[in-house]
């Protein structure tokens, strides 16, 4: 059966008949549903193909049934878990991603009606929540059980922390009464393990302070520079019973325990900033994380256009300034080197001098809500403490209108040079692919770009998780962001390569529910990109994609090795080489198939776009995800195939870590 399916996939499919065959093939047929919403899941049937081999993969009837159940918000009398869940709902927590454990809490959160997802590994569910946040700007929560579940979450919490995601981490934690005894299982102190990986955390101790500490948590999540907040709940807290509000301390509305007020810039600082902008010939704004979370993209556009200030993006998400705009420098990399005034806005993860490509004569303004961070790493010529949106609105008011035609021309020339270079890489990629009977990543990137932005699909529609290690160095070159939250920059500063399928679950869930900037594209398929090394960490989440019918196409670049494989034998460490390599030609797409999704295997440039078309259509029409396993060569990272492993360039479209 498998061989038969492979033969079909090895040929490009353009006809409706072939597409029809693909969409019903194997056991996938059995789980086809109408619509992409998780709540629209229907009882599945078993496929004929599976009947031949044994019981078919199917979505149990409990899943669609329980997803379709109406929310049952709690009211007094309530458990501690219900008090907290209600609090999260009142604060607008937009998504929840977990693995079972912390039972009282996850049950209460689902009952409140917060869109909830259960996956296969706690770490990946943290990344799902992180990805959800990065493309919506809204708070999401994640949960794991005490001990092993919690420690599984650590890498992914680290990644969310580096990305400054307002992530609410909750975990159960045995009982206070059993502290230090090692009675039973899964004893672990949690808060010390997230030191350095969070903004704030607390182990709940006193049951009637649960509401008070929830307020602490959301004050941290909703003000200033965001980062994860970690609460751990011993059993005495989540199981506590509260008959009426008077039993809870500090029980009052959110307008009393936190403020929506934001810092406004000092007018004298704005005057000085305007003077600096007016003195500059080639000013450039670095629009980063804070611009997105402060929803300041419209103000940013107005400021840029009023004074012809270039804008380059730098953040764990992209799209708050369109790559299609004439003032965009995100793909005009050479112009970045020319800027004589750099205005960092909401750059929470700060580069050091030299990490961004700005020249030594550029002057620096930094606008940030946190005064304590201004001046770190990059010496400033002017620091402005302000919310990003308020500062941009003040600049818009104070700046005169101005046209800088020379600067616009240089930006256009830089973008063209970048596009020309990308075309050159594509041509090289085609040659290398033909020479090696495989597919080069430049070919994948270029074909993906054509499919997403130059075909029948609205170029603003598809959200992309731009992940992977080596593959990311090419695909970033061809990906574009035309609206806020269109690209989730996978690795970012923490550099974790494993969470990409997790991010895809979260980004897919965000689009599935149409949260925040994803609203106009509700239900559209999302694209994920990763490598073979990265895929292994989170590939089991294809079960999660499958069971919730999150429509996704995951592109896996398979070069049979860790991306850093040249660090072994390539440097003469031949005795170590085996540790950098995998078995060759592994069939990751079959894992997706075995998890109830679709698989495609691509070994040449001619097969990639048709596989993408089939996968996208299947996702759009039936909510079924696809993994496209693209067989490359590890040798593409060597100088035998220039440009081999392109180096990082930041800020802008190629930016990887900042």
């Amino acid at each position, binding site marked *: 059966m498998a061989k038969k399916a492979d033969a079909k996939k090895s040929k490009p499919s353009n006809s409706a008949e072939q597409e029809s065959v693909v969409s019903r093939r194997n056991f996938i047929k059995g789980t086809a549903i109408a619509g992409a919403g998780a709540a629209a899941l229907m009882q599945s049937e078993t496929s004929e193909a599976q009947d031949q081999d044994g019981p078919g993969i199917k979505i149990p009837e409990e899943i669609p049934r329980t997803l379709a159940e109406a929310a049952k918000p709690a009211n007094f009398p309530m458990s501690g878990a219900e008090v907290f869940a209600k609090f999260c709902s009142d604060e607008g927590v937009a998504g929840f991603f977990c693995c079972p454990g912390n039972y009282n809490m996850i049950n209460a959160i689902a009952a409140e009606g917060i869109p909830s997802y259960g996956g296969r590994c706690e770490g990946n569910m943290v990344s799902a929540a992180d990805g959800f946040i990065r493309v919506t700007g809204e708070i999401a929560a994640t949960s794991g059980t005490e001990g092993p579940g919690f420690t599984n979450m650590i890498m992914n919490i680290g990644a969310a922390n580096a990305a400054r995601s307002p992530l609410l981490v909750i975990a159960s934690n045995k009982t206070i009464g059993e502290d230090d005894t090692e009675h039973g299982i899964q004893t672990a102190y949690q808060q010390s393990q997230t030191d350095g990986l969070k903004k704030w955390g607390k182990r709940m101790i006193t049951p009637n302070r649960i509401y008070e500490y929830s307020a602490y948590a959301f004050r941290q999540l909703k003000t200033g520079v965001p980062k994860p907040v970690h609460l751990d709940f011993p059993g005495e807290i989540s199981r506590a019973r509260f008959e009426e509000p008077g039993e809870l301390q500090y029980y009052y509305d959110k307008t009393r325990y936190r403020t929506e007020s934001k810092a406004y810039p000092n007018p004298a600082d704005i005057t000085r900033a305007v003077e600096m902008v007016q003195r500059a010939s080639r000013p450039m704004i670095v629009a980063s994380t804070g611009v997105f979370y402060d929803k300041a993209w419209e103000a940013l556009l107005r400021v840029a256009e009023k004074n012809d200030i270039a804008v380059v993006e730098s953040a764990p998400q992209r799209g708050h300034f369109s790559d299609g705009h004439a003032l965009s420098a995100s793909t005009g990399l050479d112009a970045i080197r020319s800027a004589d005034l750099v205005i960092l806005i909401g750059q929470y993860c700060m580069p050091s001098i030299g990490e961004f490509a700005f020249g*030594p004569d550029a002057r620096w303004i930094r606008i940030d809500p946190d005064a304590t961070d201004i001046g770190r790493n990059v010496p400033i010529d002017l620091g402005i403490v302000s919310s990003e949106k308020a500062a941009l609105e003040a600049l818009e008011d104070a700046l005169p209108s101005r046209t800088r035609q020379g600067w616009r021309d240089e930006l256009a020339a830089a973008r063209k040079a970048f596009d020309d270079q990308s075309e050159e890489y594509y041509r090289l990629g085609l040659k290398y692919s033909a020479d090696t009977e495989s597919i080069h990543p430049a070919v994948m990137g270029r074909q993906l770009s054509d499919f997403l932005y130059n075909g029948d699909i609205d170029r603003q529609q598809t959200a992309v998780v731009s992940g992977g290690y080596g593959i990311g160095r090419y695909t970033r070159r061809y990906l574009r962001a035309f609206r806020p939250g269109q690209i989730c920059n996978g690795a970012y500063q923490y550099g974790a390569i494993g969470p990409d399928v997790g991010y895809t679950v979260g980004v897919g869930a965000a689009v599935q529910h149409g949260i925040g900037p994803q609203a106009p594209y509700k239900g559209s398929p999302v694209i994920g990109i990763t490598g073979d090394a990265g895929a292994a960490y989170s590939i089991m989440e294809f079960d999660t994609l499958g069971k919730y019918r999150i429509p996704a196409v995951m592109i896996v670049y398979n070069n049979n090795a860790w991306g850093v494989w040249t660090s072994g034998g390539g440097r003469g460490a031949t005795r170590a080489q085996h540790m950098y390599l995998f078995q060759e030609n592994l069939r990751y797409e079959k894992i997706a198939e075995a998890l109830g999704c679709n698989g495609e295997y691509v070994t040449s440039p001619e097969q990639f776009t048709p596989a993408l078309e089939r996968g996208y259509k299947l996702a759009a029409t039936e909510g079924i995800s696809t993994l496209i396993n693209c067989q490359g060569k590890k040798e593409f990272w060597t100088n035998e195939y220039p440009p081999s492993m392109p*180096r*990082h360039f930041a800020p802008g479209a190629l930016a990887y870590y900042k």
Partner: protein
Amino acid sequence: MQETVKAVSAELQNYADRGIFQNFSLAEQAGKGSVNYRFHWLAEMPFNLRLNVQKSEIEIKDVLPAVPFRSKMDKEFRSFLQQRSAESIPSHRRLDDQRFTFSCKNRQEKLSISIGFQSGDGGDAAKTAVNLLHEIFNNFLLEGPYQNYMVEFFNVPEE
């Protein structure tokens, strides 16, 4: 003579004062008519600039190690240097080959660049040297196939 030293030193000191260089020191070599400048910026290893007052020349010493003479990298670097004066380069970043002379030497597989200047142009020559260093690290080494080279010889992270 002292004017040139003053002008070059002041220009470089300005980068240090602005925090562009992480540190900065200079050492005059009495009787030799030269000043050695040393600063950290862009790389783990310090950069060394040598001002030869007699020859009106600033040398960026040993800027790229482990580059065999006439190797592909050696040739590409010389070509890059030459192209920096081309019309296609934006004027604010173009090397002014009417005002300065640029030459590249490979000694013991280490590439050095010399910038010759006219009297009174020492300060701008220093500024040119610093900007050229930036182009070498943020353009030549970034755009070219030098990931493995940078890991091996400049200790940049593997990732």
